[in-house]
């Protein structure tokens, strides 16, 4: 795993990138909530939502291809849900009973639209901000402290594990001419366990190394967050537009 894989486009520069992470977190979360709480079977308003999100994408200069790839990740579960709805769904939970014919089709469509809109919003959030600044923003927004520290560790340890995976597979490949004999599949188990144990050990030594460099439980940040009027303006106007669409349409 490349480190750039996680926040690959966070080093681009755009008005969105320059916003304070707190402004982005709150406004994107609000938009997410508004979109997801759209009644089932409602599809017209999504035209507007997608236009709004599209504008954001355009301003942020995040490549569309990249966003589409991210949508592919959730595609299986979304398609499964949409498919289930089409085949065996019953609109018991909410409205949409007034679509007797297109009912189920509209229901599936609205589920897919919601899910993909949510994915694009979240991807935008994470690819327009460096990950540790995002965490800092969440902490400033009173996210439980444990969550912040855990995330920071997790982020680092994830590299350690994937590093270990890359190395052991190189080693296995180098000494495996041809395909691994099926009767020796336990090798995979041992390899997995080795990766686990070794990255466990490495995570412990890394933690020790951190302690020996004065770590006390809080990750230091080099540049402090700075909430400007522009951020407030973005937060308010962005949220209002979404609320307006939700109410009016």
């Amino acid at each position, binding site marked *: 795993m490349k480190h750039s894989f996680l926040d690959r486009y966070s080093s681009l520069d755009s008005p969105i990138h320059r916003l304070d992470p707190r402004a982005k977190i709150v406004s994107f979360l609000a938009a997410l909530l508004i979109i997801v709480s759209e009644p089932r079977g409602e599809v017209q308003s999504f035209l507007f939502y997608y236009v709004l999100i599209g504008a954001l994408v355009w301003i942020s200069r995040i490549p569309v291809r990249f966003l589409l790839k991210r949508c592919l990740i959730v595609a299986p579960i979304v398609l499964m849900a949409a498919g289930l709805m089409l085949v065996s769904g019953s609109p018991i939970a909410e409205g949409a009973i007034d679509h007797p014919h297109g009912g189920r089709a509209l229901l599936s469509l609205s589920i897919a639209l919601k899910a993909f809109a949510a994915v694009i919003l979240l991807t935008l959030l994470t690819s327009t901000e460096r990950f540790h600044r995002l965490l800092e923003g969440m902490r400033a927004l009173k996210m439980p402290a444990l969550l912040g520290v855990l995330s920071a560790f997790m982020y680092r340890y994830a590299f350690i594990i994937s590093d270990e995976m890359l*190395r052991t597979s190189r080693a296995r*490949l*180098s000494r*495996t*001419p041809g395909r691994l004999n099926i009767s*020796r599949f336990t*090798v995979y188990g*041992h390899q997995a366990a080795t990766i686990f144990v*070794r990255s466990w050990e490495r995570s412990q030594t890394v933690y020790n190394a951190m302690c020996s460099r004065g770590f006390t439980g809080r990750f230091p940040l080099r540049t402090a967050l700075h909430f400007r009027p522009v951020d407030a303006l973005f937060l308010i106007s962005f949220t209002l537009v979404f609320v307006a669409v939700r109410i009016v349409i």
Partner: protein
Amino acid sequence: MERAENSMRNDPVRAAGVTITDLTFSYEEEREVLCGVTLRIEPGERFGIIGPSGAGKSTLLLHLNGILTPGRGTVEIGGLPVDRESIAEIRQKVGLVFQNPDDQLFNLTVEDDVAFGPLNLELSSEEVSACVEEALAEMNLLGFEELSSHHLSYGERKRVALATVLAMRPEVVAFDEPFSNLDPAMVEHLIDIIGSLPATVIIVSQSILPVIASCDRLAVLNRGRLVATGSTREIASDRALLRHCGLDFHFYCDVCHELNLLQGGTDV
């Protein structure tokens, strides 16, 4: 450590040559890590590649058994080009000892790890045991069979890593920094082993003295380019070249001289 008659050493020499032509590679788009490396290593030769840290030495080695794919250029082992089709045969021919032993060990015990390669070669179980025991003995590791590599010191793991590759009896053995983290006695022993392997040996290292002691020819890699190739004598005495590449080792000699004086100039 001395073992007089040794089957690996008495094998007929099965060594393959290595030809690298115009090899170019970059991990990321901007930075070329290897630029147009062309090199010919004869069968049975002991060939050293020296270069400063970050020169691209490890990257070059990873091309020898197709773990990395060249951006441009080709690598041939014994006339066989390294590519998708030939990969199985290539990996049988080429044994790679990684720079970091932890990259190499992934089985439960030392014995499993050493046996992993030979088992993949579909040898009979006696042959496998023989290979394993021989490799362990070579590396002075008898008695470690049942230990887990997680419980060994770094230098011990390094020796296990060497054993895992020797046990496969490859035609080309490529060592990445074999001498680091070993004690002097082990370094000397390893130089002996390298001298007697019935294979082509490629050594990549920054520990210049042991490389000089073990190689017939040297190449100097600097920032991804081959800046010189020649006999060990030629390269080792070209002090200007070495200094230019940050490889000037004369300072080690100074330390030795000083000590020899201390001892009243003992015989050399």
